[in-house]
């Protein structure tokens, strides 16, 4: 394979962080990497709890998370919110919106956050120019789908402590490096927001966090998560990281081949 040199400049730039994420699962040439790093961006700062895409609003940009936590949300007729996904620094919160700019929920900042807006036009251009980038973006969207399936299982079939343990395990793996879970990390969301993600009231979240702490599994204090016993927490959360890690060896991903 030609030109597989890694030109990503570490995680110094937000686009570099996004490129690193993409390259954990997809093989890109130097040219392809550079094309991602050259995407035009516009920085937007968001307040905590700021809804910046309303449900059923059509958008012309995808959002790359620079700092903070971004969530996608749905809402019942009575106004009860369900957080359907959370997005962490280095992740594109709505890459899929480049091909489906409406109908995938609203977006909100769970805490003060910074995002980069990248126009759908630029994303589609780079994907059209480099089929391998299109495939890498497609794979990234499917990772989001895999996470969504786990969240559906989580809120549909697990009890309160298991749900929360699963969420904290997942975020630990997503924030970790080299397929290793981060056992201490910042996750500055409120108990109410955790409840919106786990389909529980904030009182129930508080009670369940207390119970997980009493079991010696983790401590959550003012947005800082400390996992004391990874294996035990993973068992408590019925957490199997296969859905996050299974495709993290890019050499196993065949580049798109088209025979004519």
């Amino acid at each position, binding site marked *: 394979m030609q030109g597989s040199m890694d030109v990503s400049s570490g995680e110094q730039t937000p686009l570099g962080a996004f490129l690193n994420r993409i390259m954990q699962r997809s093989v890109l040439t130097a040219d392809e990497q550079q094309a991602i790093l050259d995407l035009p961006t516009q920085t937007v700062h968001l307040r905590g709890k700021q809804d910046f895409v309303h449900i059923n609003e059509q958008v012309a940009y995808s959002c790359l998370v620079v700092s903070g936590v971004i969530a996608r949300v749905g809402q019942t007729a009575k106004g009860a919110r369900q957080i359907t996904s959370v997005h962490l620094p280095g992740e594109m919160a709505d890459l899929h919106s480049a091909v489906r700019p409406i109908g995938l929920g609203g977006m909100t900042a769970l805490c003060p956050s910074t995002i980069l807006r990248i126009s759908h036009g630029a994303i589609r251009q780079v994907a059209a120019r480099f089929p391998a980038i299109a495939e890498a973006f497609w794979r990234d969207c499917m990772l989001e789908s895999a996470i969504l399936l786990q969240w559906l299982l989580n809120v549909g079939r697990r009890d309160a402590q298991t749900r929360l343990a699963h969420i904290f395990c997942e975020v630990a793996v997503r924030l970790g490096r080299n397929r290793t879970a981060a056992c201490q990390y910042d996750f500055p969301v409120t108990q109410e927001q955790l409840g919106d993600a786990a389909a529980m*009231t*904030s*009182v129930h979240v508080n009670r369940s966090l207390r119970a997980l702490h009493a079991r010696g599994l983790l401590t959550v204090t003012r947005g800082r998560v400390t996992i004391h016993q990874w294996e035990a927490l993973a068992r408590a959360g019925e957490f199997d990281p296969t859905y996050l890690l299974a495709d993290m060896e890019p050499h196993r991903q065949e580049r798109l081949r088209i025979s004519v």
Partner: protein
Amino acid sequence: MAACRAFTRMPRYYLNLYNDVDVVDEEGGEFADQAAAEAAAVRSARELMAEHVMAGLPLDLNHRVEVVTGDGTVVSVLRFGDLITIKGG
């Protein structure tokens, strides 16, 4: 970019739970008014009771959720037993 929401400060209430352990709410939440905070407390209590029932655990009807203002005043006490109706017992 969506227009910014009007930036009105809603009052903060804290929902403390007293069941098999005491779980003090250190974060609190913003509610439109006291009635909204009480409604959230009622939902919480019922949700906790429901999970106990599903797990086959006994319900203690004397457990309660208290709604507390920022200055520590308890404005409402919601006893579990007052939030459910049992027939045929």
